[in-house]
Each structure stands twice: as structure tokens, then as C-alpha cells.
């Protein structure tokens, strides 16, 4: 419901007229780097644009977007009203002023900026660069630092300390590092493999984030670290527990990326293609992982089927011998319940929240 209030405020704001002098702008812009607003709404602040008068137009965009975001978060008082500065890059033949924060032409014109941004989250670095060439709005949107931060971390993990995270110019960093990597490869590989390695490197640029990676929350740590931290928060060590057989029917799991952690013992199941926990489901004809619920195509020949069924039976018998969990099963609701149930205090619960799928 915040959305509709936001839209209303925004409509209001656009009917007000705002004039800001250049000096005020520069002061204001230098304050932005301290601003800890939602990343998605704040466009990247390129250091060059402040010093370079030729790039002053970019400031208009930044200003417009920032004001828009402030209003949407219902934070600021309105500025004095006077002449509106029309969005820059407006075509002179167009009578009405176009918003700098929305794409002007084509099918995309009805798309609100946040959805637009969401589309870009699915794209590889190569595609982002291509988009930057399409039109001015896309150029602006495709340079958004949060997108590049995600791509950087996907490709190289996090080399820098947390303090650096917010202040880097991620797009520049990505390009720089890609170039360094390429140079190193070209220097160090024997000439017969050069072509091959160059192609391999180039392929990395066209790697797009998988749908499950599009969410940013897991961004700041690798999965392994997260799993470790999760276990520590539950008092479990990294060694496998003895005598416990995990199964989708008896245990509840916490999910981090493709990794499922048994909440009782900390046993880790990584669900990838044809994982070992998958059992054959006669109804659908697929192999279904009992832990994650993922379905895979069946690759076994019919001859192996009896063996698999026997294994299933053994597994189920062993699992049944253990005391079953209460009725809840292994669904998400159950996991939340169990997570909360086992926490000693609110702090622990809060720490654990971050690992919830």
C-alpha cells in the first residue's frame, strides 16, 4: 500500500516547480556520497561528473532521481517552488517535458523504473554494455552500480573488506579487473592455447546471473561462508553428524542458494543435477529430490529400477527408525517454526533470519 501513497506523492511533486542553482547542486551532490538510501533508487555518482562542466547534464538526472526517491520514501520537505528545470535531453519538438527517470520511447515507455532495473538484474556484463548503447535512458540504467557490484562479486567473490563495498565504482572496477585478467592470460599462456583462453575469458563476460542469484541478499558472502556461519549460529560444527540419515520426510532444512542444511545436525546437501537424494516418483516420471523438491529427468535404465527401489526402501526404513519430526513436515512454514523454536533468545533468532530462504 506504500506504493500508492508513493505514487500520489510523486504526482504531487511533479506538479510543483523546483529550481536549484548550480552551486546548491554541487553542494547537494557532494552530500550524496554519504547518503545511505536504497541503492536501487540512487543512480551511480560518477566522480568525473562533478568536476567536469560538460557532464553537468548528468547532474540533472541525478538530482531528479534523487528527489524522486526522497519523495517516494516520504522523507523530505518540498523545496521552494519556482521554475521547473525540464528533464535534460528533452527533444525540442516535444511540447511537454519528459521525466528524466523514465524511458521515453517504445514499448518500454509504460514500464516503471524499478521493473526496468529488475530486468537488468538478469543480464550479463556484455548485455549490460550493449544496452548502454541503445538509448540514453538505458545507458543510464545499465550503469547502475548495484548491478555491476553483483556481477563483480559473482565473478570474483569479495576481495575487499566490507568498508570498501559501498564506495567503489563497481562498473569501473569490473572493467578494470576483466582487462587485467585478460592481459595476464595473454601474457602467461603458451601461444597455441592463447586463442582458447581468450575465448574462455570472453565467455565469462557473457555469463548472466541465474534466476536464483538475482536476489541480492546473499551477495555479501560466498555460500560456503554463509553455511558455516549458519551452522555456528546453531551450535553445529562442520563435521558430519554420525548415525543421522537425512531425508526429506523427517528433517527440516534451511536453504542457502543450492545448499540445504539439515536443521538438526547441520548435514549439508547440495542439490545439483541428479543429486543423490532424488527418488523416483512414479506419478510424474521424474526423479524428485526429497530434500529440495527439485525434479530431474530420469537417467537410469529400467534395469536399475529395482535396485533404486530397494535403496529407497532401505532408506525409508532407516529414516522411520528414527523418531519422526512432528506433523509439520519439511515445508517452509515448518522450517521457520523449528528455527524459532530452537533459538535461545531473540538475538539468535534475528541472526538466523538472514539465512532463511
Amino acid at each position, binding site marked *: 500500500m506504500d506504493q500508492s501513497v508513493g505514487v500520489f506523492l510523486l504526482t504531487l511533486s511533479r506538479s510543483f516547480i523546483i529550481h536549484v542553482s548550480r552551486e546548491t547542486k554541487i553542494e547537494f551532490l557532494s552530500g550524496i556520497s554519504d547518503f545511505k538510501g536504497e541503492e536501487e533508487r540512487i543512480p551511480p555518482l560518477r566522480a568525473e561528473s562533478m568536476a567536469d562542466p560538460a557532464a553537468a547534464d548528468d547532474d540533472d538526472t541525478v538530482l531528479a532521481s534523487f528527489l524522486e526517491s526522497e519523495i517516494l520514501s516520504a522523507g523530505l520537505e518540498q523545496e521552494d517552488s519556482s521554475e521547473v528545470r525540464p528533464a535534460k535531453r528533452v527533444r525540442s519538438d516535444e511540447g511537454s517535458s519528459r521525466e528524466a527517470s523514465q524511458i521515453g520511447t517504445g514499448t518500454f515507455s509504460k514500464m*516503471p523504473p524499478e521493473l526496468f532495473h529488475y530486468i537488468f538484474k538478469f543480464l550479463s556484463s556484455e548485455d549490460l554494455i550493449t544496452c548502454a548503447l541503445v538509448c540514453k535512458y538505458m545507458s543510464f540504467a545499465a550503469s547502475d552500480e548495484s548491478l555491476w557490484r553483483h556481477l563483480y562479486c559473482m565473478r570474483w567473490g569479495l576481495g575487499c573488506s566490507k568498508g570498501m563495498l559501498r564506495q567503489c565504482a563497481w562498473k569501473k572496477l569490473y572493467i578494470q579487473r576483466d582487462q587485467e585478467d585478460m592481459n595476464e592470460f595473454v601474457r602467461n599462456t603458451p601461444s597455441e592455447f592463447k586463442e582458447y583462453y581468450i575465448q574462455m575469458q570472453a565467455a565469462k563476460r557473457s555469463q548472466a546471473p541465474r534466476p536464483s542469484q538475482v536476489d541480492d541478499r546473499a551477495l555479501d558472502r560466498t555460500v560456503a561462508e554463509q553455511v558455516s556461519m549458519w551452522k555456528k549460529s546453531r551450535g553445529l560444527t562442520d563435521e558430519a553428524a554420525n548415525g543421522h540419515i537425512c531425508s526429506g520426510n523427517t528433517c527440516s532444512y534451511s536453504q542457502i542458494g543450492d545448499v540445504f542444511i539439515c536443521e538438526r545436525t547441520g548435514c549439508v546437501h547440495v542439490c545439483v543435477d541428479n543429486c543423490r537424494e532424488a527418488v523416483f516418483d512414479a506419478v510424474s516420471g521424474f526423479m524428485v529430490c526429497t530434500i529440495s523438491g527439485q525434479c530431474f529427468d530420469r537417467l537410469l535404465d529400467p534395469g536399475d529400477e529395482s535396485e533404486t527401489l530397494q535403496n529407497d526402501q532401505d532408506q525409508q526404513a532407516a529414516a522411520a527408525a528414527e523418531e519422526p519430526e512432528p506433523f509439520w513436515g519439511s515445508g517452509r512454514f515448518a522450517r521457520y517454526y523449528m528455527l524459532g523454536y530452537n533459538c535461545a533468545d531473540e538475538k539468535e533468532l534475528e541472526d538466523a533470519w538472514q539465512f532463511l530462504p
Partner: protein
Amino acid sequence: MAKMIKLVSGDGAEFEVEEEVAFQSKIIKDIVADADDVIPLPTVSSKVLIQVIEYCRKHAAVNSFPLSPSSSAAAAASSSSSISYSKPVSDPALRAWDNEFVKLNNSSLFDIVIAANYLDIEELVDLVLETVADRIKGKQAQEIRRQFNIENDFTPEEEEALRRENSWAFQNN
């Protein structure tokens, strides 16, 4: 008898749907919890609303009649969460249905995603946006412009400067 909710589109047409279908939309779920069973949706046209209802109907059905216990865990997981984290749909049959569903032109797709965004139907938003992203991937700038009818508002000099700046991405050497 399943409880029915009435949705009224922007052009005044009324659609009665089962509660569980309508509840694929978190917004509707909240509204109904407070009071009404009649929900006006002035920003959504009939054409779009029909398609959205079709999607919700299919996904609600899958969530209540799972193929097997483990797929029900995954399905229940994706529908009962109130945290905004979306999982890819794990049932291949449903995924195939989804892929058929999004075989629409860009304009229709955008109408759907805007409605789904307004109604807060996370999975549908993700589905459509991912489809649009797929239509962008691997294309050249000119192709993208043609696909989505975008005007090239760069001057030739600006365009040339941009290409030079970004030539690293197109280098093969």
C-alpha cells in the same frame, strides 16, 4: 463451496474467482482480510485481468494438488512465504505451461507485468521480467531497438564515443 471473490476491471467488467486463486495476489489477500469481497482494480483492463487470472488459477491449482509430497514442499514454500524472495518454479510441467503463457508480444507482456506488480504477484512478475531479459540477451543494440521500438537518441558523435569507451567488451584480443 469455495469462497468467491469478485474482481472488477478498469472498464467495469466483473470476474468472480475462487479465493485461493485471487490470493495469489498479496494485495488482494490483504484487502480481503480487512473487509471486502468486491475488489475494484481501476488500473487493470479486462484483457489483462483475464490473463492474470488464468495464471493465478493455474498456479493455485498446482499448489493445492501437488504431484508428490516433496514437490508440495517446494510448492508450498514458494506460495506461503511473506518474505520477498522468489524461487524458480521447480515443477517442469508448470515451467512448460509458464513458457507457453509468456509467448506474447512485448506490449502485452508489459501490461501483464505492470498489473502483476500492482497486485503483488511475485512469481508472475519474475516470470515476465525474465522472459523480457531473455529477449534482450545476446542481441546487438540495433536489434534491441527494433524489438522494443526504441528511438536512438544519441548523436552520431555520442554513439561513437560510447562505442570507443566500451570497446573492451567487444575485443577479441
